[in-house]
């Protein structure tokens, strides 16, 4: 499978990474090199094999669905690039 510049543009958009148009051909070339390497996996017979979900055969612990932590708004906001009046601030998203 070969990736063209349009696909590279679409992937960059999905990943929310701005890539200038003139950088797309080189990016597509790198993707193709990596995906070409990955294509080897098609040689493997995986019939009847379940995809791995957990590397150790353990069941994740469960707990009551209750609040166990919280109550530190200031700490949560301390590293925000822009925080105002107790909220994260972002560019306007609704008119």
């Amino acid at each position, binding site marked *: 499978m070969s*990736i063209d510049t349009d*696909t*590279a543009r679409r*992937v*960059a958009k*999905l*990943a*929310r*990474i*701005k*890539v200038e148009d003139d950088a797309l051909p080189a*990016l597509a070339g*790198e*993707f193709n*090199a*990596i*995906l070409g*390497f*990955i*294509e*080897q*996996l*098609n*040689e*493997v017979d*995986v019939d009847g*094999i*379940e*995809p*791995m*979900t*957990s*590397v*150790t055969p*353990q069941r*994740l*612990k469960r707990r009551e669905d209750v609040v166990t932590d919280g109550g*530190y708004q200031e*700490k*949560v906001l*301390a*590293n*925000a*690039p*822009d925080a105002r009046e107790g909220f*994260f601030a*972002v*560019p*306007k*998203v609704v008119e």
Partner: protein
Amino acid sequence: MTELTRFTIAEARDKLRAGDVTSTELTQACLDEIDKADALGAFVHKTPEIALKQAEAADARIQGGAENPMCGIPLGIKDLFCTQGVPSQAASNILDGFKPEYESTVTTQLWQAGSVMLGKLNMDEFAMGSSNETSTYGNAVNPWRRGNDEAALTPGGSSGGSASAVAADLCLAATGTDTGGSIRQPAAFVGITGLKPTYGRVSRWGIIAFASSLDQAGPMTKSVRDAAIMLGAMAGHDPKDSTSADIPVPDFEAAITGDIRGKKIGIPKEYRMDGMPEEIEKLWADGTAMLRDAGAEIVDISLPHTKYALPTYYVIAPAEASSNLARYDGVRFGRRASLAQGDGITEMYEKTRAEGFGAEVQRRVMIGTYVLSAGFYDAYYNRARKVRALIKRDFDLAFEAGIDAILTPATPSAAFGLGEMADADPVQMYLNDVFTVTVNLAGLPGISVPTGLDAQGLPLGLQLIGRPWEEGDLLNIAASLEGAAGFVAKPASWW
């Protein structure tokens, strides 16, 4: 005072307890060495005030009869670990200025044990790299050189700063993390010991995530015994990490008995790669002979899916990374790109991530996005998870057949020069992890032990792979190999 910084953890522990040295003296000696070693690019955030305060507290505890072997030991901490109030930015520009309001579980446990934080250590950005060349701080440099050649060599990656700092005796030991070889490969490149524990042995909470099903933190130390001591302080169940194992932490140091008679050591034929340098072949054969001489039984084994480990890794790790790194969006932490008039929230995300992530991180996030996207999920991601199951089954079958540990080379070469791989395609760099990545995919413990020097005088290491949760047994076999190899070389100081 430089002699003090050359101590192993075990030596320092004994001298601290005997009252021959104080933690404050040890810590000050390390801080002095660190200040002289900026050319190594290892320590990227120094924390002398915290260190001296912790050392003073440790001295008081030791006087009061503190029993923890890590008490008073000065350590370096990889920048991937969140440390409260101290910059923790995964060597990425996107986390510039980030000072966590919390402390990772591993570092919390180390400070509770009485250890001392000297500062934060360089690494590849978000732990994505094998040469420490993707760091926003610039390169970390290997203290070793090729004879009289002054060319700067890589300390490996991603835990390159940790490797450089321990090898150059700037600290007694350091934390590392390992997703595909990021503890073991740099350890081998600088002639120290690096242990990746069983997945789930050490809590991942508060460690900036790369690929959550593969990431595991571990010790990087000057000896196998030190790795055992330090792992004891790092390990344990943590309710804040649902994948951390709720099983007891044994006394790993006590497992080092020196007796490996009757142990079955597997030699996997698939690790004998085409074009493997003769020096690596010889290193491996010599290591095999050392274990045989120590009374182990050497068994030829097969791990047939080995060649598919790297391609599997380069689906699974980017897929998980694209998901984990979605949080860096310029809203909650780190830096936000400056925006033009009229830019909306999408432009904010796109510009922030384009400016904040380096080229390798961008590449992996986009590859991950692609293999998880509609139409490709089955062909790439699900297929890789199936092959991963087969890779793990190879190991399961070997262990079921009675193998106690598997001996392989740690890396396909000695340390290469910084910049030497700049023109290579990304896949060439990925081949560095060819011997280590299987271990992460199978969730197993693996340790890299320095056992020799190449013709240019650079260290080379062997890897031992153990049964799940049997780090104690693995460390015992590693200690036997270490003792037989007698690796004592140190880099000559030029920094």
